[in-house]
């Protein structure tokens, strides 16, 4: 024990030292950034320097040519990330043809601004003067035009790489509603959102994260609805991220979430532009990360996991019914195995007599205690699911079928597992798919409750549930209480919880999120049958 403590202490010290080192390092690097190395006048020197920096990569193309009055230039670009035809048509062609057209004018075109203004027929052109900028630009798909006898370079927006087309998302399929989903390209994603919300108030701010990956990350929100403090907080947390790589929005999520050790995620994600747009319109902010179709949105509340964009497109009765079914399914998926264990091992008096007979009959000769059975079946189910997801589709199906047969049929006939347990596990498994946003927390809770139930029955389950409840009640996501409309009760916002009120009745935004500009729409929008006058008019028309 003591040695363990000593080890801990030593580790602490080590951490402190490392931390101090980090501080120093960061200081130096910042110092370095403040004075970037400037381009020199000579093209040759510049090219050598650039070759030294990125030249020996096979996808870097350095094309040297001259135009006009033997002005030597070099075009540097990455072959895979640029639009080749654009380079040919809009950069090379005008430059080259310039030399033939009007000889006397070309002589004057030494000035880089002139080239930019008169020759290049491309939308985005920047002027850079340091190596760092050039390299960064080149790596993000811009073409760099270096001129001899000029200490500035032009970065031309030729960015274009292969990306997936907008497709229907696999994770959130709908019956009614738009079928488009985000793609891996940030630009496409922002476009998809912009197309939903064509308001000048929609702000999309971008920043680069990851010292090596230099991933573009955008924050999208609506100015005037979103709480400015929220946006500030998001920026603060994003700027805190000092890492070398951001490969997926999951990286960002784990860096910015409020409760890193909670089993409940405090950052929501979605693949559907309409869902994200709706969230933005409620006053949330979306965080888009380049390279992934999963867009984050904060703050997240628990209820969000039970909402689906389709709820709002279908009529309120059915939507409310489906909502309540989702809640039911979530509770089944968490409590079914543990309740079964508690009932069969501690509280047999709570089972109705005829049911007890058949359950006891099925359990006769089964060697394992019910807790063991529940845990075993839970694990087997998770294995089967994982195998089904990872394997290629045809093989995955075969695995599922074999697994289901083996467990569902053979294990019961062999007397290894009671048939009721199989039913309970199957029910749990099916229900756990209903609320997919909480499936990770659901799995952990399920196992915990099974263990608690096996230990001290219903008392264990209730105590555990109280613990989860305390945890949920104390959880906040970017300042918003996690159980938001329920636990700090806000009666007005209960319209979008278990019951989904008609759209015309939800005339305010959620109190804890978008209270900055509370009114969503006019108060009296409930449709009513046409008044007498209009009826008369209609008749007259007919």
């Amino acid at each position, binding site marked *: 024990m003591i040695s363990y403590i000593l080890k801990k202490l030593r580790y602490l010290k080590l951490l402190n030292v490392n931390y101090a080192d980090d501080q120093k390092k960061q200081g130096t690097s910042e110092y370095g950034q403040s004075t970037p190395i400037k381009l020199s006048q000579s093209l040759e020197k510049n090219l050598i320097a650039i070759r030294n920096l990125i030249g020996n990569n096979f996808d870097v193309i350095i094309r040297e040519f001259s135009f006009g009055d033997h002005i030597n230039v070099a075009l540097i670009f990455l072959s895979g990330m640029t639009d080749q035809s654009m380079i040919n048509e809009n950069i090379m062609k005008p430059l080259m043809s310039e030399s033939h057209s009007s000889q006397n004018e070309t002589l004057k075109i030494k000035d880089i601004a002139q080239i930019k203004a008169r020759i290049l027929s491309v939308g985005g052109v920047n002027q850079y003067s340091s190596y760092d900028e050039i390299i960064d630009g080149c790596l993000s798909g811009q073409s760099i035009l270096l001129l001899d006898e000029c200490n500035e370079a032009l970065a031309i927006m030729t960015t274009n790489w292969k990306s997936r087309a907008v497709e229907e998302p696999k994770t959130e399929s709908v019956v009614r509603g738009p079928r488009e989903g985000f793609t891996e390209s940030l630009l496409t994603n922002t476009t998809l959102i912009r197309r939903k919300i064509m308001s000048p108030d929609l702000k999309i701010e971008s920043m680069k994260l990851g010292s090596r990956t230099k991933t573009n990350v955008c924050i999208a929100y609506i100015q005037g609805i979103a709480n400015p403090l929220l946006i500030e907080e998001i920026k603060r947390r994003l700027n805190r991220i000092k890492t070398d790589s951001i490969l997926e929005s999951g990286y960002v999520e784990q860096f910015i979430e409020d409760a890193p050790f909670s089993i409940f995620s405090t950052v929501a994600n979605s693949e559907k532009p309409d869902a994200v747009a709706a969230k933005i319109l409620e006053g949330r902010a979306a965080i888009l990360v380049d390279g992934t179709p999963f867009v984050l949105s904060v703050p997240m509340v628990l209820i969000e996991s039970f909402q689906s964009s389709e709820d709002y497109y279908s009529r309120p009765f059915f939507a409310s019914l489906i909502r309540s079914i989702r809640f039911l399914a979530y509770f089944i998926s968490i409590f079914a195995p543990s309740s079964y264990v508690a009932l069969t091992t*501690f*509280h047999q*008096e*709570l*089972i*109705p007599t*005829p049911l007890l007979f058949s359950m006891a009959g099925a359990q006769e000769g089964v060697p394992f205690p019910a807790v063991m059975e529940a845990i075993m079946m839970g694990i087997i189910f998770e294995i089967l699911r994982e195998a089904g997801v990872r394997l290629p589709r045809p093989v995955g199906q075969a695995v599922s079928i074999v697994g289901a047969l083996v467990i569902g049929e053979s294990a019961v006939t062999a007397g290894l597992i009671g048939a009721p347990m199989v039913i309970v596990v199957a029910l749990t498994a099916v229900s756990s798919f209903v609320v997919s946003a909480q499936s990770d927390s659901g799995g952990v809770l399920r196992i915990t409750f099974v263990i608690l139930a096996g230990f*001290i*029955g*219903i*008392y*264990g389950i*209730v*105590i555990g549930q*109280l*613990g989860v*409840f*305390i945890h949920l*009640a*104390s959880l906040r996501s970017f300042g918003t*209480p996690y*159980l938001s409309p*329920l*636990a*700090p*009760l806000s009666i007005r916002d209960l319209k979008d919880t278990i019951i989904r009120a008609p759209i015309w009745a939800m005339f305010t935004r959620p109190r804890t999120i978008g209270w900055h500009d509370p009114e969503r729409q006019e108060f009296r929008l409930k449709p009513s049958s046409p008044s007498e006058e209009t009826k008369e008019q209609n008749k007259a028309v007919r």
Partner: protein
Amino acid sequence: MKLEKGEISSSQLMFLVGGFIQGSLLTLAFAKDATKHDLWLALIAALMMSLPLALVYITLALKFPGQNLFQINDAVFGPYLGKLVSFQYIMLFLMIVSSNLWFAGDFFLTFFFPETPIIVIMIMFAFICAWGVRAGIEVIARMSIILVLFTILIALTTFILLLNEMKFSNFLPIFDIPIHDFIQGTNIMMAIPFNEVIIFMMVIPYANKMKQVKTSVLYGLMIGGITSLIVVIRNTAVLGPLADIVVSPSMEAVRLIDLGEIIERLEALVGIGLILSMFLKVSVFYYATVLGMAQLLKLRSYVPLVIPVGIIGITLALTNESSIQFTYTAMNTYPIFSLSFYIVLPLISLLIVKIRKLPK
């Protein structure tokens, strides 16, 4: 220096008080022994008598906005005598925490796990309450709404399901007990749930709307009182004289639910409702104890005290010999003992406040 940074709304305060009173549904059995089938009368009498007392507490709390019971004690009785009074209150609260732990353990031992050592149940319960207390009063208050609604739902459902087992002649003859017993019953009812709202003098300072405090607390008392009344009426009407001899009338009454062999054996609901509402009660007392200690000793945070106080509470509960001895104390001596804390001291405080025209 503020130990608690949370803020609770008036509706949360109301439900917290309601849940707090509901947390004593189990201990209704003490008054039941004294008043038999007239328990409901004693309950109403106790509720009526505790309303003015609650007003006394609220008036005191509102005279000193932002200050809780112990700070008020300091202001009223002076720094030294005030500390002594506060110390006594802390001891009382600690004892209530430990006795409630014992009640919970005792109940689950009797009805669900007769062979389990009581300490396991108490530790688990204390653990969850400690967790809640560490999270702060704001979190407990947030939870209260759902817990209270759940308890009310259970009480109402079982009431409706038992309607055709009820015999309202069980209440006859009304007032069939000696007046001595009735006074004792009322006293017990006041001592165990209703006057304990004095604890909310520790919570009221954190309410965000001081104007609504009075109505919230009184409505909360009514919520708790009405739930208790529903439960008492259900038990007496269903069980009749049998309710006088069983340990937990609620449990036995709910056991009798049998609707077409489908809706039956629901007694787990009683147990669940009990843990949920007792959690609120114990947490509030627990919170007041640790907050009071931290204040008395001028600490910067009450959080480190939570676990040691919890363990002391459990060990104190374990010093009880049997539930029979415990029942004796709760029925015969404790109600009188508590009068000084719940009636005498607050009234003296109010008097001193009026005479010395505090706060200056």
